[in-house]
């Protein structure tokens, strides 16, 4: 229980509320369900009180006070519904609109615009302003991703503060002054940030809009589906907004433990890769050197027959963009049905792959006192939203050391450090473990690591045994280990099954591997969009893109999260269904009807997954 002195009791509109000391009036009111209108205020940024929308009455204070910036005090009496407040709210909205173009009918924001909504709720019915409005540039390209409409801008500073406080890039600034003030980049150079999409989400008007989404849809026409970003292993929560069964945009779906409400542009603007903007071919079988369209059952039968001929000399590669359910079935197909141990999900090289124990959950970066980013920018490039968490932590006093070498990382952290984190990409996992071990002997506190694996489900692929030397749950294979992908061309492999689940994490064959593919008896390609591999395939099994299926993904920190079907592709078989059909054609007898039923079996095979199922909100093998 909190200590009494840390709590403050105040009254808002006659109702008492007790909140922690330091709470802003706005948040205390929110706790009571009292909505104070805001524009500039943002829960993740320091209060600036520039828009003046949130002014309310506080007893004993002669002037109206900004609820977004004033902390509560014991015995404070706040009034948000007085005539004085209401009259002022009309006044400030009238001010905000005198130079606003009111082009709502053609504005992307219309329908989800705080300015529009609050004008309806709190504004005057009509304006008394009868002069020419101040005119500014419209449709200013800020970058290849963002368009700025300077007339719609109400100068709330959210975007400029984002680039200062959230990303630390200081890319947007206020230029000129007074009514002529505009937002812009230095010298009008294109913005370089990889977090620009967030600007459009925090903009309380239609000033900053995404080029990809311009004039695509009205918000009320969108279907919204919760999902997880397919870009990288970070596991940022997204919402797939679609219209007429087409993806319109990805929006963030705040998860404080993971993304803190932000997305990177790589992830946000990746949706065209998953757009079924044309038909991507039916199942097909190579006959006389040409791919010929067949039905799913025919293609499945052909694939099964070919795989069965290869038996334990078949190899399987599955993308780290596939769901846990699909990966689980994929490894069962190989280990149980074909008795082949040759499984992999990795692209090139062999990375040592042990369980990710002593892991550092993403949100715990903020609770470290020292964080070593081994590889610096390459770690950020692999999971860009990680930078925002690091920047936030740094602002709150966490020492973040960006180093290239283990030695430098060891030197950067003092012996007194109590909570230390090591961040690295999978490519430098061995170095990260070396550093972690050395730090453990040096510092007095704990040292945990966070490895940025490849792909949104690279972690799941490891956990579920899409590896030649470890089974599901990192089970040791006792001499039954297979060969890693790099050795396949020289391992007597006769058939290769490539499950190329995501255009963002493709098989990515080298020239040498393509030569090898050409020499193989059997190449089976299961994929979403046509790819170069189709040329080498004997059987092509078209599957679905991630917005078209449901299942779970495991992020790099070991968080198992659900993706849901947002786009209907009923005419295309679900990927797990294809895998099950291939296995069953060889007599496997799997009974799955839904991805949930697969997860149930998966959780039995890897019990940690039962404990970390999406509903649990926990990370795998985590302490919390």
């Amino acid at each position, binding site marked *: 229980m909190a200590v009494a002195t840390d709590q403050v009791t105040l009254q808002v509109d006659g109702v008492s509320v007790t909140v922690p000391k330091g709470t802003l009036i706005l948040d205390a009111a929110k706790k009571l369900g009292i909505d104070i209108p805001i524009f500039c205020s943002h829960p993740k940024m320091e209060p600036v009180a520039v828009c*003046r929308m949130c002014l309310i009455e506080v007893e004993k204070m002669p*002037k109206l006070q900004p609820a977004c910036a004033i902390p509560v005090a014991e015995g404070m009496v706040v009034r948000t519904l007085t005539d004085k407040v209401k009259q*002022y709210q009309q*006044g400030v909205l009238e*001010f*905000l609109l005198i130079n606003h173009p009111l082009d709502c009918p053609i504005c992307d924001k219309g329908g989800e615009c705080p300015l529009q909504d609050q004008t309806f709720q709190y504004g005057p019915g009509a304006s*008394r302003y009868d002069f020419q409005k101040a005119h500014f540039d419209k449709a200013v390209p800020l970058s290849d991703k963002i368009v700025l409409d300077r007339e719609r801008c109400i100068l709330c500073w959210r975007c400029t503060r984002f680039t200062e406080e959230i990303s630390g890039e200081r890319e947007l600034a206020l230029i000129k002054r*007074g009514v*002529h003030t505009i937002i812009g980049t230095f010298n009008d150079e294109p913005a370089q940030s990889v977090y620009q999409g967030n600007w459009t989400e925090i903009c309380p008007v239609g000033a900053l809009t995404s080029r990809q989404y311009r004039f695509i849809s009205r918000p009320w026409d969108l279907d919204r589906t919760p999902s997880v970003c397919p870009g990288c292993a970070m596991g940022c929560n997204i919402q797939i907004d679609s219209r007429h069964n087409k993806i319109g945009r990805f929006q963030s779906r705040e998860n404080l433990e993971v993304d803190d409400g932000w997305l990177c542009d790589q992830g946000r603007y990746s949706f065209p890769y998953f757009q079924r903007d044309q038909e991507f071919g039916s199942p097909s079988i190579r006959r006389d050197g040409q791919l010929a369209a067949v039905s799913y059952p025919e293609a499945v039968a052909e694939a099964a027959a070919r795989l069965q001929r290869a038996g334990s000399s078949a190899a399987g590669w599955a993308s780290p963009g596939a769901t846990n359910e699909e990966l689980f079935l994929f490894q069962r197909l190989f280990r149980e049905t074909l008795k082949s141990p040759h499984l992999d999900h990795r692209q090139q090289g062999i990375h040592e792959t042990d369980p990710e124990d002593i892991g550092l959950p993403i949100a715990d970066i903020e609770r470290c006192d020292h964080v070593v980013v081994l590889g610096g920018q390459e770690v950020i490039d692999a999971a860009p939203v990680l930078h925002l968490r690091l920047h936030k932590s740094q602002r709150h006093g966490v020492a973040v050391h960006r180093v290239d070498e283990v030695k430098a990382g060891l030197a950067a952290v003092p012996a007194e450090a109590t909570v230390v984190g090591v961040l690295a990409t999978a490519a430098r996992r061995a170095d990260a473990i070396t550093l972690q071990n050395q730090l453990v002997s040096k510092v007095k506190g704990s040292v945990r690591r966070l490895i940025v694996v490849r792909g949104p489900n690279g972690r799941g692929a490891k956990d579920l045994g899409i590896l030649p030397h470890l089974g599901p749950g990192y089970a040791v294979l006792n001499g039954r280990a297979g060969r890693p992908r790099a050795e396949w061309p020289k391992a007597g492999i006769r058939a290769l099954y490539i499950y190329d689940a995501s255009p963002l994490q493709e098989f990515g064959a080298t020239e040498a591997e393509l030569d090898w593919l050409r020499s193989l008896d059997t190449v089976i390609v299961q994929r979403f969009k046509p790819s170069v591999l189709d040329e080498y395939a004997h059987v092509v099994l078209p599957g679905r893109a991630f917005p078209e299926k449901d299942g779970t993904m495991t992020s790099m920190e070991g968080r198992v999260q659900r993706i849901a079907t947002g786009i209907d592709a009923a005419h295309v078989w679900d990927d797990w269904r294809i895998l099950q059909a291939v296995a069953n054609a060889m007599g496997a007898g799997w009974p799955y009807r839904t991805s949930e039923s697969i997860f149930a079996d998966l959780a039995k095979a890897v019990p940690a997954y039962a404990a970390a199922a999406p509903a649990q909100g926990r990370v795998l093998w985590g302490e919390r």
Partner: protein
Amino acid sequence: MAEKKILTKDFGAPGLAHLAGYEQTGGYQAYQKALKELQPDALVEMVKKSGLRGRGGAGFGTGQKWSFLPKGVYPRYLVINADESEPGCFKDRYLLEASPHQVVEGLLIAAFAIGCNLAFIYIRGEYLPQHEALEWALAEARQAGYIGKNVLGSGFDVDVILHRGAGAYICGEETALLTSLEGYRGEPRLKPPFPAIKGLYGKPTVVNNVETVATLPHIVSNGPDWFATIGTETGKGTRLWCMSGHVNRPGNYEMEMGAPIRELIYDLGGGVWKNRKLKAFQPGGASMMVLLPQHLDVGLDFDAIQKAGSLAGAGAMVVMDETTCMVDMCRRYVEFFHHESCGKCTPCREGTFWMTNVLTRIEEGEGKAGDADLLLEMGNNIDGRSFCPLGDASTWFPRSCIKYFRDEFEQHVTEHACPFRKERVMVA
């Protein structure tokens, strides 16, 4: 009646702008006395006891302001606000030009009193000769050992940085000044925290006006009791009044607090020019509310002027004769605030723009019935609602003019023209 000269008593003495001349008039004696005989805390008490109130505009107790600094938090900074930009104000310019050392000595006393080792002077960018005078004075003071390490063997270290502003009125507002001094856009900061707690570079900071610190050597030399005998109950000492407008002898006049306005305008200023009648006057500068001939016997003092319905502000006295169009005055002033609005907050940014449009329309004879009320309502939505006093102040003069001269506004509207156009004279 004459002026009561304290700050300006030696003005005109030969070489006053230079160290030797200033020392001849007793200059830097107060500083030496402070260093040798007084503890910082005693100095703060002395200034509190003197009743000195800030001369920048708000009239806040100087000693009280100093005592808001949190104990034991260092470094702490002293910043002298020499960004005098209020239309109608030119007293700091006069003080800096005529006797820059007096300002420097006052600054050094203040720095010693509050335990500041690095002080700043933020001077208006347009004040180039005054900047040069200060630069010269600082160099001389440095050379004489008044500025530097272990000043005169007292153990007190002090340095002064002189910084030129870049031409924004808003930077006269103390938090905007600090922001600008740090190298950012000149925009006011959220208060609280007040500068005393979190000011320049996040450190405890005192911002004092030029005239305020120029008064300090006299308080130290003659004692707080002497100072407290001058002026009124709540306004001690003298003030420089910058008189301009339709008056025979415009200029700076140092007056005892509480002396009647009539003395300033008529006895010292020689009355309204061209034998015209006094229509109105405005104490405090462009921001402040207009007063009428009926207020001529009000005392030149913070509280008396406030009671009369205006504010003493930074000590300007703008005199308007009977040919002055009050609508045009409003238009000019509001246009100024519109031009100088930093754009940070909505009411000031949009409100000054809209008010300018309305006032221009009325002055051009295109006003609409109800425009005066529209201005009042707009003023109500700006005053007390904007982020800093710039927005608030933009509404005070026009609203007071509508209060006293509503007929004039309505005459503009009904006659579709400015009744003063033919004989209008440029003011301010």
